[in-house]
């Protein structure tokens, strides 16, 4: 019994970190540009497909594929921001919502055309491996994703804190108008941030490809998942994404153990509602928009 609890705890924590990394891209973009990227899930699925192709066609390890997916989506995100999203930054939320729904549809449709509707499972050996720590088994793919999540967050935090461009980004996040006035290259900052956000989504997608089979219409599920995670943690905060992920991961794991597993997503949405009402900015939320 204790082993079961231990395993559930471990699995909840690892899954939570995986949720955290899935949500990271969403939170970065919101934190700086103040737009909610509803096409986030489609970008994650994009990454999943990159991970699948890398593994199935060229036998590239997941972690290398993740770097590739990150680079690819950085370019995509940078381009998308410069060409399209830029014009919508100051527009009302509902217009942005439609824009991103449109982008998401285009991505999902393109994925459906390119890969067909069949689930594309990763062929990585990671899908089956575990490390035993005493009686507790740790899932290797999740462990890898969680570790990379931690590294990525540290690297990003370091970049934002110490590099000059990172300072620009933080300044732009704090006060767009002020930044413009002192001559910050706001368009470049926004495009880069959007690129980083997309890269996080893509990298996360590739990293979790041993866990989830790629399918075009998973996008909505991933978007919702990222929302729940980010909102519980606080939109716009890195630590929040991780804490939110952990909260959701653990809640789901223990809900599945103690109550009906089929109701576990009800529980996470319930939790989300409570958090939104009681602490709308989440645990580590950004300031009022």
């Amino acid at each position, binding site marked *: 019994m204790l082993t079961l609890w231990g395993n559930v705890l471990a*699995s909840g924590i690892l899954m939570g970190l995986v949720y955290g990394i899935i949500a990271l891209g969403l939170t970065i973009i919101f934190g700086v540009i103040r737009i909610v990227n509803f096409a986030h899930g489609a970008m994650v699925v994009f990454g999943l497909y990159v991970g699948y192709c890398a593994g199935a066609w060229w036998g590239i390890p997941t972690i290398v594929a993740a770097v590739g997916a990150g680079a690819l989506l950085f370019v995509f995100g940078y381009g998308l921001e410069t060409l399209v999203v830029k014009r919508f930054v100051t527009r009302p939320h509902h217009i942005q919502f439609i824009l991103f729904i449109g982008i998401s549809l285009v991505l999902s449709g393109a994925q459906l055309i390119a890969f067909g509707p069949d689930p594309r499972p*990763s062929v990585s050996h990671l899908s089956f491996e575990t490390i035993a720590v005493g009686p507790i088994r740790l899932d290797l793919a999740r462990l890898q994703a969680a570790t990379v999540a931690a590294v990525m967050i540290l690297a990003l935090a370091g970049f934002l804190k110490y590099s000059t461009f990172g300072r620009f980004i933080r300044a732009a996040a704090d006060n767009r108008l002020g930044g413009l006035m002192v001559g910050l290259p706001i368009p470049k900052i926004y495009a880069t941030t959007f690129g980083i956000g997309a890269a996080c989504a893509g990298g996360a997608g590739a990293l979790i490809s041993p866990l989830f*089979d790629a399918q075009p*219409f998973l996008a909505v*599920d991933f978007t919702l998942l990222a929302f729940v995670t980010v909102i519980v943690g606080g939109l716009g905060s890195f630590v929040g994404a991780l804490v939110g992920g952990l909260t959701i991961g653990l809640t789901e794991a223990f809900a599945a153990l103690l109550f009906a*597993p*089929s109701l576990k*997503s009800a529980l996470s949405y319930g939790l989300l509602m409570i958090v939104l009402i009681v602490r709308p900015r989440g645990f580590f939320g950004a300031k009022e928009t």
Partner: protein
Amino acid sequence: MTSLKGPLINRRVAMKGAVGLAAATMAPWVRAAAPPPVKVGAIMPSSGILAFPGQSCVRGIDLGAKFARERYGVDMTVVHADTQSKPENGRIAADSLIQQGCNVLIGAWDSGATISALQAAEAAKIPMVVHIASANQVTSQGFTQVFRFYPPAATIVRQSLAEMKALVTSVNDPPKGAVVLHLSNTMGTSTATSLDAAWKELDLPVKLLEYIPYDEKARDLSVEVAKAKASGADALVSVTRVNDAIMIIRECIKQAWNPKLIFSPNGNGVPDKAFYDALGKYADGAMSSNLWYNPKGEDARTIVDRFQSTYANEWLDANSGCAFEAVQIVADAVVRARSAVSSEICAALKATDLKPILMYSGPIKFDATGQNTGAAVTVLQAKESKPHVVGPDAIAEYKARYPLVPFEKR
């Protein structure tokens, strides 16, 4: 899609491969005067969430139409309509097809779209052959134009458990306890409900220990599998879609749980290509019961080969199989009615008594509600990256292997 290019091209293309087939079988129907041209509308969820089964059905329809043209000499045109996996589009799709002059409809995979399409069919008095749709209500709501090939969940489950009983009573060291891991969606819940009743009715010698339902959108089944393992069961009965089936086996491996039997009544996974792509050698031994083609049927080999040569990267699965069979049911009715008038096709469908062409099944007959009474399941087992039929005995390719080889020893 080839079927849209018109019958002439198709017939010519098809003839090349089919001369041998036609000569060999000497179909007795061909002698009658050629039946009138008929337009068949196929309503499928080709995009959206259900695109995977939907497109599989489309392939079955197209191949089925080619086959029916040769076998029955029916000049059959197929028009496809996509519901985008939304129920409200069922009716729009049906009306659009009827508007384009379709004499008979086939569809629509999910029960919501099927019911919605049936309303249009009912209003226009156009018969609709439901190749797949699991809800009982499809045939119990008083529609007069419905002919459902697919059996209700309860029938599938009872037959599946009968097969499972035959298996566990014939082996040494049968499993003692079973745990049921099932989806909590429409298909999963109805299957689980019938499972409970059928298990008692058939008095299976395996103890049913626990039901573990999980959400369709579940992203992780580690806790569910841990719970199943902790229940002490040595047989896993699962009701899954492909993705979940893969996830469950992966978790079993990771958590070092080696049940003696993995059996999935009315479940996906074992019949699907993705299952083998994902699991490789770990897929072997898992079993499921499905509507499946009869490997010993007269035309099965030809049809499967035709399918393979047309769609190199796809498998002929239960979805395309049922869709294929539905086209044959329509063609048979058109030939007997010698008419393309909907009401006459409907009357002919009512009198259907067809020996199945591709699927394993008893004679296809529709009762007063429009339900096919002949449908039967087969038991499949995964072996060497392919599903093989291991039951019922009459059509088995080999005797089911039991118990499962522990995962770490593969």
